[in-house]
């Protein structure tokens, strides 16, 4: 990590996430196809490619600016429901007013809190509605807890990843509240929500890095 700019840590996590998303395209399409239109893998491929292209220019930026650039880039290049909610979430995180001298895990906790609040507000959803929030909220909470408890970064990220994974798994038994209603043939029963799995993939990538 020689010559590391202020956002080097963020960028390296970003690269890990983007690469994993590229690998999981078909799985995300398939999950989205169960109840939606089967394109989340395509949208996330567009997002991941945009981020990988952007990454080199981010390292030297202040962290909040780097995060905001990711948000505006996804808003432009991957503007689906999922993509736009993620873009808004990143922009909200960038706006959260996190001071650069706060320790990394606390910064992460503050970003994720703002991000989860943004998804809930913009998407008008709560936990249990079978959306990406069902993986994001528990992961954010796990990081907050770990940061408060003073755990180390690898442990914290592993906790967050397993919280996100558990949250994604639970969506398989949830009924969707947004979009289609309960009176529709519930083909989705037993399948995870695509956006929740996407969040779990991202946290797993961050933890593995």
């Amino acid at each position, binding site marked *: 990590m020689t010559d590391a700019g202020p956002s080097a840590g963020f960028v390296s996590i970003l690269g890990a996430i983007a690469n994993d998303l590229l690998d999981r395209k078909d799985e995300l399409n398939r999950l989205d196809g169960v109840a939606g239109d089967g394109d989340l893998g395509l949208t996330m491929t567009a997002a991941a490619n945009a981020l990988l292209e952007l990454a080199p220019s981010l390292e030297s930026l202040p962290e909040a600016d780097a995060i905001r650039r990711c948000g505006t880039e996804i808003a432009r290049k991957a503007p689906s429901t999922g993509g736009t909610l993620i873009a808004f979430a990143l922009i909200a995180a960038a706006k959260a007013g996190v001071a650069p001298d706060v320790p990394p895990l606390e910064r992460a906790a503050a970003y994720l809190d703002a991000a989860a609040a943004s998804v809930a507000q913009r998407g008008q959803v709560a936990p249990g509605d079978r959306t990406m929030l069902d993986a994001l909220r528990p992961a954010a909470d796990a990081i907050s807890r770990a940061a408060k408890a003073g755990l180390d970064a690898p442990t914290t990220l592993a906790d967050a990843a397993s919280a996100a994974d558990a949250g994604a798994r639970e969506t398989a038994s949830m009924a969707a509240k947004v979009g289609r209603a309960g009176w529709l043939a519930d*083909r989705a029963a037993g399948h995870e929500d695509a956006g929740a799995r996407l969040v779990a993939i991202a946290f797993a990538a961050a933890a593995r890095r």
Partner: protein
Amino acid sequence: MQKILNDPEPFVDEMLEGILLAHPNELRRPSPRAIVRADAPVAGKVAIATGGGSGHLPVFMGYVGRGLIDGAAIGNVFASPSSDDMLEVTRAISAGKGVLYLYGNYGGDRLNFDLAAELAADEGIEVRTILGADDVASAPSGRASSRRGIAGIFFLYKVAGAAAAEGASLSEVVAVTERAAAGTRTMGVALSPCTIPAAGVPTFELPVGQMEIGMGIHGEPGVRRGPLETADQIADELTRAILADLPFARGDEVAVLVNGLGATPKEELYILYRGVARILAAEGLPVHRVWVGEYATSLEMAGASLTLMRLDDDLRRLVDAPAGTPFFVQG
């Protein structure tokens, strides 16, 4: 994947290039994913913008033209355009009389177009929004505002576009289009899936001999799946669901749209209409005018949808008004 294409990646951009090459005098492209009337902004007229994912031609940009709408933001296949794209459209069509955003009720579109409307307002452009939410299969009538927008948007474009062409103010256009939206109901049936080019595999499986009633135009699940029925049985199921929902009442004059989803021949659409017409006659609902053809598609999906709009004097005049785009002409 039996498709005529070069590469799934630039599918939408190559399609746009082809459309602009074919219709250079009628359409222009202020930014890569924004298509507007060649003569936009049209002075003295309320402007109408729409947008949404690709794969539904003539929805969306096929309705950009005389007597219809002024511009459309173009997303990837089945994906929302960006707020930037919608903002570009808005700037290119705004003639100072206000802009109506008229599009289907989908999460991504709402997020992006609401943001575009905010940004346009910051630039001093007044924007009002009406959502197409006509698919009775997508939510019960108690939650009608969460319904998906499907082929019924054609009637909304027709009404709003004709009202704007007549010189109505933004609030007048909004009022009559909201009345149109309140009286428009659609339900569809899918007989086959379709394949997003970049995905390469069908979005879902639908075995031969089966149909899905109420399926969405991106392949979202419908109300039930079962053995393929006859045209008359399908006409009955679609028509009854629609009639019960508004509810339409004996004597209501209606406009009818029988829409093909992509692979279903016009011959079959007319056989379906034959069944619908008989029911409407029996229910005492006079048919003012009928459109049969491909008005809102899902790539090469087989199937059809039925839309009914309840008319009043204004709506009758507005649906009958002339219109002309490279994809749709009415004399």
